């Protein structure tokens, strides 16, 4: 049964560390875009900074894990400051332009053969103990589940895979709790105030550019954390951090509901489930001959994502969890 298989695969995708990593990167982007109104079109750059900052610190500099994580966070903070200081005093559009360019610069740099010795160029960084390049076996030491088969209802996991899922989702849970604590505080209110009108905030004695910079750093560091989670169970591959990742993250944030606490999680789960289902549907359409068979047919699903994002913004701009009433006041 092709349909049943597709549904099972979609169910399994919900728990996947990739879904968790995207949820986390979307939580960061939600702080930028949803709460503070910063148009960051380079969240993939922050994810890349986190992934490379962490993996290179472990594999190339051979630093301890905790230090590698701190370096990844610090690199994201520095990246945010570099992007923010020249642009945050200007209108929002300028940040959008600078972030999309900066994210591409990061990707081209790590992808370049010039730095093959360090970054592995287009090959990226393999995560394989036998090749002497490994940054995630430390986490397996703590795996209480063993490496064997584990069945959860109709789903079958390896112990390792389930362990990864648990670790990543627990981290998503902790970060979500922290973000909730921050957003209910007066600090969180200043972010939303800046989103509505930075000049009005300045007239009330709030340092609007400083608030924006804090938000950019926080969301960027959470993006870097997502980068670490994203590469832990697999390898580092530069092609992943293209603009498509950023736009998928925007789809997730808007789908779940911008400026909501659980929106990015719901958005990521729905996004990946639909993506897996649509892939199955396209394969099925090819099988029964309705759709011509071509090499990149499965990539069609990303065209569907674009269409879905457009329809979403037209028909349900507040997303799944957003407040429709609030949305009706969004300035045109």
């Amino acid at each position: 049964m092709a349909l049943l298989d597709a549904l099972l695969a979609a169910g399994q995708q919900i728990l996947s560390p990739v879904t968790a990593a995207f949820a986390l990167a979307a939580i960061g982007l939600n702080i930028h875009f949803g709460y503070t109104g910063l148009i960051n079109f380079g969240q993939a750059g922050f994810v890349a900074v986190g992934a490379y900052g962490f993996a290179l610190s472990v594999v190339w500099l051979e630093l301890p894990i905790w230090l590698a994580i701190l370096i990844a966070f610090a690199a994201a903070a520095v990246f945010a400051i570099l992007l923010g200081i020249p642009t945050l005093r200007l209108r929002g559009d300028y940040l959008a332009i600078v972030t999309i360019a900066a994210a591409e610069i990061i990707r081209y740099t790590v992808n370049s053969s010039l730095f093959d010795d360090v970054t592995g160029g287009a090959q990226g960084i393999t995560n394989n103990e036998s090749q002497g390049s490994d940054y995630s076996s430390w986490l397996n030491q703590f795996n209480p589940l063993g490496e064997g088969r584990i069945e959860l209802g109709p789903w079958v996991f390896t112990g390792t895979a389930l362990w990864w899922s648990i670790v990543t989702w627990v981290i998503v849970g902790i970060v979500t709790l922290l973000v909730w604590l921050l957003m209910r505080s007066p600090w969180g209110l200043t972010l939303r105030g800046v989103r509505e009108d930075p000049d009005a905030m300045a007239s009330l004695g709030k340092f609007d550019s400083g608030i924006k910079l804090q938000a950019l750093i926080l969301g960027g560091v959470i993006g870097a954390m997502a980068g670490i989670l994203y590469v832990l169970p697999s390898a580092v591959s530069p092609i992943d951090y293209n603009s498509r990742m950023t736009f998928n993250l925007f789809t997730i944030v808007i789908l779940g509901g911008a400026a909501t606490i659980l929106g990015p999680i719901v958005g990521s789960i729905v996004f990946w489930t639909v993506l897996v289902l649509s892939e199955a549907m396209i394969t099925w359409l090819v099988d029964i001959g309705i759709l011509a068979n071509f090499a990149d047919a499965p990539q069609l699903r990303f065209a569907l994502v674009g269409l879905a994002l457009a329809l979403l913004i037209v028909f349900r701009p507040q997303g799944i969890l957003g407040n429709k009433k609030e949305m009706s006041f969004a300035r045109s």
Partner: protein
Amino acid sequence: MPAVKHASDPILVAEGVQRHFGGVAAVDVELLEVPRGQITALIGPNGAGKTTLFNCLTGFDSANAGKWSFDGEPMQNVDRHRVARRGMVRTFQLTRVLGRLTVMENMLLGARQSGEKFSRSLFKPLWKADYDEATERAWGLLKRFKLDTKADDHAASLSGGQRKLLEMARALMTQPKLLMLDEPMAGVNPALVQSLLSHITDLRDEGLSILFVEHDMHVVKEISDWVVVMAEGRVVAEGESGPTLANPAVIDAYLGAHHDVDLRAIIREREAGRA
């Protein structure tokens, strides 16, 4: 032109403030004094540079030259948010309410709270006392401005007049020493104007200094203690309200011939003509 009249005990003194746009001098003020504890009206025709002067003094625009001091401390080259923190708080000609926040949230952003620091925001016990104090103060002001029933509504759902009230109440949350209102009556219906005016005079009676830009001469006559007249970027007259507004030069040149005609009288006249 009348000689410069000095205000006794000014809270704000500006000297030689200039702002050029291209070759045009939008503001070229030799001396401006705003008396303490009084209501000062800044009047003049459109394009006189009133709002530009407001923007320069509050750090929202950079003056090309000049220096000014507020409460004895120099204020030029001070960041706009620091100007507000020192007690010089302005509102805007086109109201700037924070639309997708509630009326209460708008008010709370006027207060300075310890919980607005990132380092203290995670733990509610670290900021709750400040927050409660600010909330209580906000309720008091909302009741005073008759916005308390709207506290949980989005600010974007308020009418134009209510937004003016909210902006003024929010500015008062900062506990300013000088409140600078840029056309507080623009777009406000006559019934609300009356209550806004009494709010402003009450605030003065409580010791606040107020500087406001206004076009309606009835309003200016009714509440201002001191008047500054601007034209083409310059201060052309200033002084106590009564004599300054009675000055024929001021009336003819800057207020127009119809300065003393009540709008309602004009309407009555037109209606009579039609009948």
